[in-house]
């Protein structure tokens, strides 16, 4: 009997080992919500995509931020992407800190936000009660707000000093405003009184409200703050440039995040799709976007050196355009797919042109694509 018990125990412990087996090849998966990088979530998983679940959340009008004077050492920068205002603080020795002012059309769970900032400085997550304790009362433009101050215990990867984040937040109408200072811990701490004074001093000018942005593609995913699509911040809908559409490109209504979309049909009904989008700032950078496109056709990421081999630069009316050409397999359809992309930085915007579809159709359209990109006239272009 003891032998029986021992043998049961021995067999029961075999789970710890690595298993090797042959499994039938998987049938194409049933459609499930996919994030923008093509990752599929398990059933019941909260949506983590940027423009997916809550796309259509409309940005209310953003009042203009007004201040009488800036603290010493603060220099205003052109606001980019989601920022309503942006500043750089530099001291005499060249130490820098970044100040951002971001209005968002969300309430969000305060604890999730606090934990997101804590995570940025490698601090463990906080509880509701602790988060409340960490908040200091602050006056923002004559209204009540909260100030959070958190610093990393050690220098973060890639920096010599500890990092400190100061965030003041307030709810005003339909917008949550975030004022954030990020930089070397001691320097940011020294700037704290100036920051608090600046917060008191500001006001909101409703008459100069910026036009509502079209679709920020933002939302709260499963209680987690989720505010970008594909690693990009959107800067609202810029004016469409002037372009000449080739005869066989058929304009179709664009979906959210896109400014224009065309269907291109080649011989034997093979298809490709041409899309135009524009984002504020560098939109994550060229490398991130090249890798995003590579992933869409099932290719692994490349580094800077690898990317340089697959891109070329052409002259466009608004400056230089970077051409990207990748061929792979579309994860959704399993068909061989080619992406011909062009990235054109224009002022504080980056424009993306992408033709994706049947490789033969894309090859046929390459000249038309290049000409289209080269001849676009951008509004406000020099």
């Amino acid at each position, binding site marked *: *009997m*003891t032998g029986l*018990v021992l043998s*049961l125990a021995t*067999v*029961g412990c075999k789970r*710890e080992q*690595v*298993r*090797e*087996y*042959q*499994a*039938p*090849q998987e*049938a194409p998966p*049933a*459609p*499930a*919500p996919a994030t923008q*990088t093509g*990752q*599929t979530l*398990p*059933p*019941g*998983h909260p949506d*983590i*995509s*940027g423009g997916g679940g809550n796309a259509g959340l409309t940005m209310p009008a953003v009042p203009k931020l007004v201040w009488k004077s800036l603290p010493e050492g603060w220099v205003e920068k052109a606001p980019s992407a*989601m920022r309503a205002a942006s500043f750089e603080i530099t001291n005499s020795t060249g130490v820098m800190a970044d100040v*951002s002012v*971001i209005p968002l059309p969300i309430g969000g769970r305060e604890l999730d936000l606090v934990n*997101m900032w804590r*995570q*940025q400085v490698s601090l*463990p*997550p906080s509880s509701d009660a602790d988060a409340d304790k960490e908040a200091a009362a602050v006056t923002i433009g004559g209204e009540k707000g909260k100030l959070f101050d958190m610093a990393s215990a050690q220098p*973060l*990867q*890639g920096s010599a000093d500890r*990092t400190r984040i100061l965030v003041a937040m307030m709810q005003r109408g339909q917008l949550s405003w975030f004022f954030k200072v990020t930089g070397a811990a001691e320097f940011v701490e020294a700037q704290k009184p100036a920051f608090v004074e600046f917060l008191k001093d500001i006001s909101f000018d409703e008459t100069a409200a910026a036009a509502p942005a079209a679709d920020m593609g933002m939302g709260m995913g*499963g209680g*987690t*703050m*989720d*505010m*970008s*699509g*594909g*690693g*990009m*911040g959107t800067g609202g809908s810029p004016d469409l440039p002037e372009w000449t559409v080739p005869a066989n490109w058929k304009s179709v209504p664009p979906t959210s995040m896109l400014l224009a979309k065309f269907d291109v049909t080649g011989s034997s009904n093979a298809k490709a799709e041409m899309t135009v989008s524009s984002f504020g*700032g560098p939109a*994550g950078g060229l490398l991130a976007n090249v*890798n*995003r496109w590579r992933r869409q056709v*099932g290719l*692994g*990421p490349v580094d800077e050196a690898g990317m340089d081999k697959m891109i070329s630069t052409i002259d466009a009316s608004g400056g230089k355009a970077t051409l990207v050409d990748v061929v792979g397999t579309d994860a959704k359809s399993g068909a061989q797919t080619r992406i011909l992309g062009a990235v054109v930085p224009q002022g504080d915007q980056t424009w993306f042109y992408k033709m994706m579809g049947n490789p033969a159709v894309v090859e046929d359209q390459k000249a038309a694509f290049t000409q289209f990109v080269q001849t676009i006239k951008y509004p406000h272009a020099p």
Partner: protein
Amino acid sequence: MLLDRIVRFISSLRLTVVCLILAIILVFFGTLAQVNEGLYNAQARWFRSFFVWWTPGGTDWRFPFLPGGYLVGTVLLVNLIAAHFQRFALKWSKLGIHVTHAGLILLLVGQLSTDMFSRETLMSFNEGETANYTVSPSITELVFITPAANGKGDDVISIPQSLLTHPGKVIHNAKLPFDIRVQTFYVNAAVRQRAPMMDTNPPPATAGFGPDLTLFPQPEVKTTDERNTPAVILELSNAKGSLGTWLAYAGLSEQEITVDNRTWRMALRFERHYLPFSMKLLKTKHEVYRGTDIPRNFQSRVQIDNPVTHESRAVDIYMNNPLRYGGLTFYQYQMGRDQVDERRGNSVLQVVRNPGWLTPYIGCGLVGGGLLIQFLMHLVKFIKRRRTV
């Protein structure tokens, strides 16, 4: 002399009573503990253990303060067997006692085997979909998959979650062209796309999906209606050096790693158990009591296709009417709609493999039969004695 005393102690009725009292205490406190510790954790700590450990607050010390379910069960079993042999007498008059004891032993051994061999998994599919595997509701596996050299399906190397929870552990498998070094394991985590304006910290990993994501460790959830989504950060390396750090997360699909012209797909997924047959969900029926949301009947019509037995038939699985097939029991568990296509029904079956499922029935039968035999023998003897008087 000493041996005698030991045997007497092991086979004593006093030990039986002490074990039974301890079992009652364990069941009582183990049941209460499920409120704070969650069902699975409490079961593991109180019942599937030799000792119940206690850690004083703020220390790393561990003290056993109660014998666990395994210890109590084992001592009871040894006690029962020892008592049986010590007082064993091959007489017809003791037949009932022997049968009852055999039933009790079978109950204890059966429970132990159920505990060790039974497996609860889930099968989730939408109408029209076919499934040939079930998944664990809570345990994950790290898998590396590559097309099989013989062209038949995929080769899968599966690393159990228990090997991923130790930082620094290096996992080597002869079939994999790289070694895996565990950096950090998160029992529960959430990820989202990196937001350049907010995420100034380094990404969780340098290769695969990692550079585009931000990882948030989450507290472990313990209730049965929530599920942890584990994540692990790994470093892969071969003789040429590091292949980068990778984030494997149970909420992501497969990531590709190409080494020596061979591509492997990597994923952390809920542990899969493949079946030798397949099941297709034909239709779901979801009935509620009129005017309420209270479920009256969940019913799944499934088509079983077994290439081994050439069986192909449709069966209905509904509440209180499980399907027993291929050594498994399929219970209707949950029902809903497909997340993408609302017109399609989704059904989740709980799939239980329990090779010892008959032992409680046989054990109870033996105990009942033994007691009946013993009672009848006494009754007959009593009647006979009355007649002679």
